[in-house]
């Protein structure tokens, strides 16, 4: 467990991200885990011909989950996420690779907390899911 993470933390520090390229299997498993039958997530003719999307739509909250992975993996047990905000601004489609990432916005050494900016970007580099998180570090 990394309990000294906040000591050297400063605004602008970056959070390592991950690349995600979900296929239909993962997208199906995610919908199944939620019991979400929305056809835009598994029915290509419906998604494209009825709803007018260019492909199968990645689930919005799955993208949100990947924001939390960015935070929790970066924390590596050094604290807890106490607040999360995000919005799905633009859809992503199966076949695309999206990437997570973030940076430190502010650090409060008195309370042992930090505010983070986090994001999911599409292949074009557009931020499609912007968010913020607050983390509270474990007391040393």
């Amino acid at each position, binding site marked *: 467990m990394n309990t000294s993470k906040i000591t050297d933390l400063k605004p602008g520090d970056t959070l390592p991200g991950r690349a995600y390229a979900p296929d239909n299997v993962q997208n199906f498993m995610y919908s199944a885990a939620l019991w979400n039958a929305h056809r835009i997530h598994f029915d290509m003719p419906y998604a494209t011909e009825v*709803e007018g999307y260019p492909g199968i739509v990645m689930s919005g909250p799955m993208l949100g*989950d990947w924001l939390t992975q960015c935070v929790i993996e970066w924390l590596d047990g050094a604290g807890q996420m106490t607040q999360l905000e995000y919005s799905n601004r633009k859809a992503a489609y199966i076949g695309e690779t999206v990437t997570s990432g973030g940076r430190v916005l502010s650090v409060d050494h008195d309370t042992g907390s930090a505010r983070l900016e986090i994001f999911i970007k599409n292949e074009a580099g557009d931020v499609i899911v912007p968010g913020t998180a607050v983390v509270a570090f474990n007391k040393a």
Partner: protein
Amino acid sequence: MSTAQQQLTLSEPDRKNAGSTDGLLSDDLLACIGRTSAPRTEIASRREIRKYSIATGWKKKEYLDGDEAPPLFHLALFWDMVELDKLTPDGVSIDELLPKFPLEKAMAGGLSIDYFRPIMAEDVLVATRTLTNIYEKSGSQGPIIFYEVIMRVETAAGELVLTEKTTRLLR
């Protein structure tokens, strides 16, 4: 008053937004603000946590083993579960907390969550949802209706786990 209870009170900017700019929101519709769902109880089973953690690609062992739930697991645990004839043709369940809106094309919205304690395997959790705001704004492609729902999740013993505000857009 707890933090979560305070969040159920509309903020001043929200109150200013809670009105119709183009007349789409009737008084009857706005009167639905404050509606609360019946409490729903679910068990955060190890299996459900594992399914969620695997499907989302987590690497953290505690999540993959189902000992502890990832931060957004409650979305899966409390996703609406209805019988087949209650699904619309597009596979979506009708949210009975919501009134019928004059705009129906749902756009993804946003979430704002305050966490108070993690969800652990076999926790018995109770969720209550409240429709806290409905308002309308002008968008570049026409009016947009926004609504906000706050979900409060507690343990069966009444310990607050999280509060979540969902904002959805309708075009």
